[in-house]
């Protein structure tokens, strides 16, 4: 049995002896395919450290595994004698839902909820297929290889889109007029972008000259089309190559067990972030999320280059992505486990960030269809168009998307509004599937923020977490601890987070965004993450098989609560399916926040696609996605 492609045992033991916290993530994986033989814990002979029992990997509906002492020592002692695990998916092949006690849900209600969510999503998809946005057109240019910025820091993709918008040539998509001009002027696309950004050039000073240059001419249209297609193919091939590179890393190195430990870095300076991220990886972090500077979601451009100044986080830029990716690859190779990198495909540049993430091999992206609308007051038409393109790119890149329902209840009451989280995850799932995202890419985010002093708060948290787990088998759900009820009392906060860690492992969540005791005080210090990772390791290890040992009492508080929340979610979905998602948002059905169809930021960047709209990337992505799904099926 091969420990899931992990580095050698010696390497792991060395890590453990070096870091006395016995980073659970350094504990070797147990294979998922063989029932009952994969029980983990033994001591690591070289170091004498005992290894925490960690999450067992069993197929869904598996019988509980035997206790560790019943496992023949040979089953885990020699990792080298075992054949390679044949299947490495984009996500760790963990039996989803393992660990969570079974929950009996009314299958008919669940089925109806999904049908309604699909109907709601199909209307959104139809809308977004009929429209485009400046961000989407900039994404097309990025995929065609346009990079760089002006001396003033304006990205060239912004310059080009703004120029064509100004002469009224954006409605049918940027690609054909832009490449027609490249052909007419005999310039490469990058050269043409440079010329447009040159204040002294005729094209940038004379709108008539620009207008003439971008006209589609019968004699060159085919050449322009072929050229655009060729450049777009090159960009998309890079994303596909990064997808393959990730697969290879996972095959060679393996990764941490679920629940993956997800921590944030947010120093504002990418070079300092790298230091913090490397330290976190050594302590057992599986996913590093680089929090963005607080202003970025409302910037209508992606900054260029490495950045050292940010507030509450660090700007997402292609150069910053590349820097962090290289650092995590390096430390991951040393630790013998692939460290995932996460950022935020959200805000006004949602599809561009997804594109850059694909190019630079990010592994996860916060990418919610509704979050920006609700919490950043971004116009709903803008975000609903942008989310589709960003998710198609994420599907292509093999990225896991994380949705943001875990934030709804920071503004709405956690118990009263629990059903809105459930309804939203179902809608996000349907929207994601409409963009070809696979189950193992759906890191639906959730968690309630119940007042910690409410009697039986833990039962309700378990109920909600178990309900989401049961609704989305196979999806690497992302569970997030509370932020609203953190007080500045770090010890109390640590206990609250510990309770959430327990719920995480008990209900078999895929990704745990580890709570920091210093939440609401400052962005995490280097040792704040150590506290959080140590707590998670203790609890994930110590309670690894708890979920498979317990049952929810039939008719008990948890089961009743799940039933009630699901029924209310069903009602909400019925309501939304009647009026449509946009209307529901304007009535404040989510997070107690009302947003109007024409309000918020970014509406001026939305336009109806013209009759001759053409985007070369769309058809290539369609083809690639088909190819990938055939490969994965075969």
């Amino acid at each position, binding site marked *: 049995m091969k420990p899931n492609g992990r580095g050698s045992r010696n390497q792991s033991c060395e890590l453990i002896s070096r870091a*006395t916290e016995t980073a659970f993530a350094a504990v070797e994986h147990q294979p998922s395919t063989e029932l009952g033989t994969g029980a983990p814990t033994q001591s690591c002979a070289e170091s004498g450290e005992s290894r925490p029992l960690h999450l067992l990997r069993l197929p869904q509906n598996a019988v509980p595994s035997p206790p560790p002492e019943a496992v023949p020592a040979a089953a885990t002692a020699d990792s080298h004698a075992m054949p390679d695990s044949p299947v490495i998916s984009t996500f760790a092949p963990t039996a989803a839902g393992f660990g969570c006690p079974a929950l009996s849900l009314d299958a008919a209600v669940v089925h109806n909820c999904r049908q309604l969510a699909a109907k709601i999503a199909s209307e959104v998809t139809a809308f977004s297929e009929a429209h485009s946005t400046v961000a989407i057109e900039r994404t097309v240019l990025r995929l065609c290889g346009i990079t760089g910025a002006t001396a003033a820091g304006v990205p060239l993709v912004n310059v080009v889109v703004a120029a064509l918008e100004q002469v009224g040539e954006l409605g049918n998509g940027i690609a054909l007029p832009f490449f027609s001009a490249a052909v007419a002027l005999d310039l490469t696309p990058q050269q043409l972008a440079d010329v447009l950004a040159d204040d002294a050039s005729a094209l940038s000073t004379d709108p008539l000259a620009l207008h003439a240059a971008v006209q589609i001419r019968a004699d060159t249209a085919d050449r322009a089309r072929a050229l655009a297609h060729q450049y777009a193919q090159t960009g998309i091939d890079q994303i596909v190559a990064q997808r393959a590179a990730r697969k290879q890393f996972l095959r060679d190195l393996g990764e941490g067990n679920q629940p993956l430990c997800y921590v944030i870095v947010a120093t504002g300076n990418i070079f300092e972030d790298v230091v913090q991220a*490397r330290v976190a990886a050594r302590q057992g972090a599986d996913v590093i999320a680089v929090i963005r500077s607080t202003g970025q979601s409302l910037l209508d451009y992606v900054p260029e280059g490495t950045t050292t100044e940010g507030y509450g986080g660090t700007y997402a830029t292609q150069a910053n992505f590349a820097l962090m990716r290289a650092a995590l690859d390096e430390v991951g190779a040393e630790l013998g486990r692939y460290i995932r990198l996460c950022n935020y495909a959200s805000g006004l540049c949602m599809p561009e960030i997804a594109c850059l993430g694909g190019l630079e091999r990010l592994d996860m992206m916060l990418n919610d269809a509704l979050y920006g609308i609700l919490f950043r007051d971004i116009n709903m038409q803008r975000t609903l168009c942008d989310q589709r393109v960003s998710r198609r790119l994420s599907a292509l890149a093999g990225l896991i998307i994380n949705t943001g329902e875990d934030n709804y209840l920071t503004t709405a009451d956690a118990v009263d509004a629990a059903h809105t989280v459930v309804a939203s995850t179902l809608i996000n799932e349907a929207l994601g599937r409409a963009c070809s995202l696979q189950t193992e890419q759906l890191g639906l985010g959730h968690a309630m923020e119940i007042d910690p002093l409410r009697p039986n708060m833990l039962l309700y948290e378990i109920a909600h977490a178990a309900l989401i787990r049961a609704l989305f088998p196979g999806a690497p759900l992302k569970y997030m601890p509370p932020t609203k009820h953190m007080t500045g009392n770090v010890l109390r906060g640590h206990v609250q987070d510990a309770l959430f860690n327990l719920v995480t492992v008990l209900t078999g969540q895929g990704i745990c965004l580890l709570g920091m005791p210093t939440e609401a005080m400052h962005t995490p210090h280097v040792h704040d993450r150590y506290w959080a990772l140590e707590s998670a390791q203790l609890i994930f290890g110590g309670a690894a098989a708890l979920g498979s040992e317990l049952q929810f009492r039939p008719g008990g508080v948890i089961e009743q609560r799940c039933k009630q929340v699901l029924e209310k979610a069903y009602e909400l979905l019925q309501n939304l399916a009647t009026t449509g998602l946009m209307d529901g948002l304007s009535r404040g059905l989510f997070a107690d926040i009302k947003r109007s169809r024409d309000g918020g930021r970014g509406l001026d960047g939305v336009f109806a696609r013209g009759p001759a709209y053409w985007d070369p990337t769309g058809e290539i992505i369609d083809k690639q996605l088909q190819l990938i799904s055939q490969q994965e099926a075969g």
Partner: protein
Amino acid sequence: MNPHGRQAAAPVDLSRVRAYGDTLDDGQVMLSFSLPVPYGDEAKEAARQLARQMGLLQPQVYHAHDLGEGFTYFTVYARSPHSVDFTNIFVPKVGLAKLDHAAIEALWQATMGTRKLRVLGACTGDDAHTVGIDAILNVKGWRGDKGLESYHCFEVRNLGAQVTNEALVSAAREFAADALLVSQVVTQKDCHRSNLAALVDLTEAEDLRQDLLLLCGGPRLSHTVALELGFDAGFGAGTVPSEVAGFLVQTVIARQAAART
């Protein structure tokens, strides 16, 4: 003076108060920090020496942990010989009566009639965290205390996130605001202080300062900090809307009375 709880034990000298662990004047404090040095005996000695340089006595490194990448984390206990004179502490307070919703409405109506107190709120600068300002302004309020929008005596406009100081001041002019409420959550590199101070400067440059009540709020803000920055009041974590409402109503009434005399 003998604070409650020490009737039989040795009395506290409030002019010389020290940190307390389990014995009066033991000076016990806990420190927790990391150093960018590799884990080992030298790291622990470095932590001890650093604690001594902080003026602490008998530092004990109870816990040291290798964070990797040349970092070590420490938990240190030590004794602090320093003391403060508690009889000579002054903390500025908002210092007005705490009124409930009905009393605030009644006070305003009795004095100002049907005119409304015009309140403009925003998260300024890069700050996108609107939870605080929403809790104070939205009808729903916070902890069962209804927000300012639920009061008859207020006309409220909430500009939301990431409003520039310039936009806020121009909105204040257009809205004829009586009061500005500014929320600041992000405090990295003290950006909240510079941003708030810049707003005060701008209202002065625009000759609006004397007509406006300037209030700020946020988890890292206090009345003391607000006064330092040139605001009229500051509200920290745990503030409920009626505290802000009570301050606004009482202050505007007092100012009007002062202007008449």
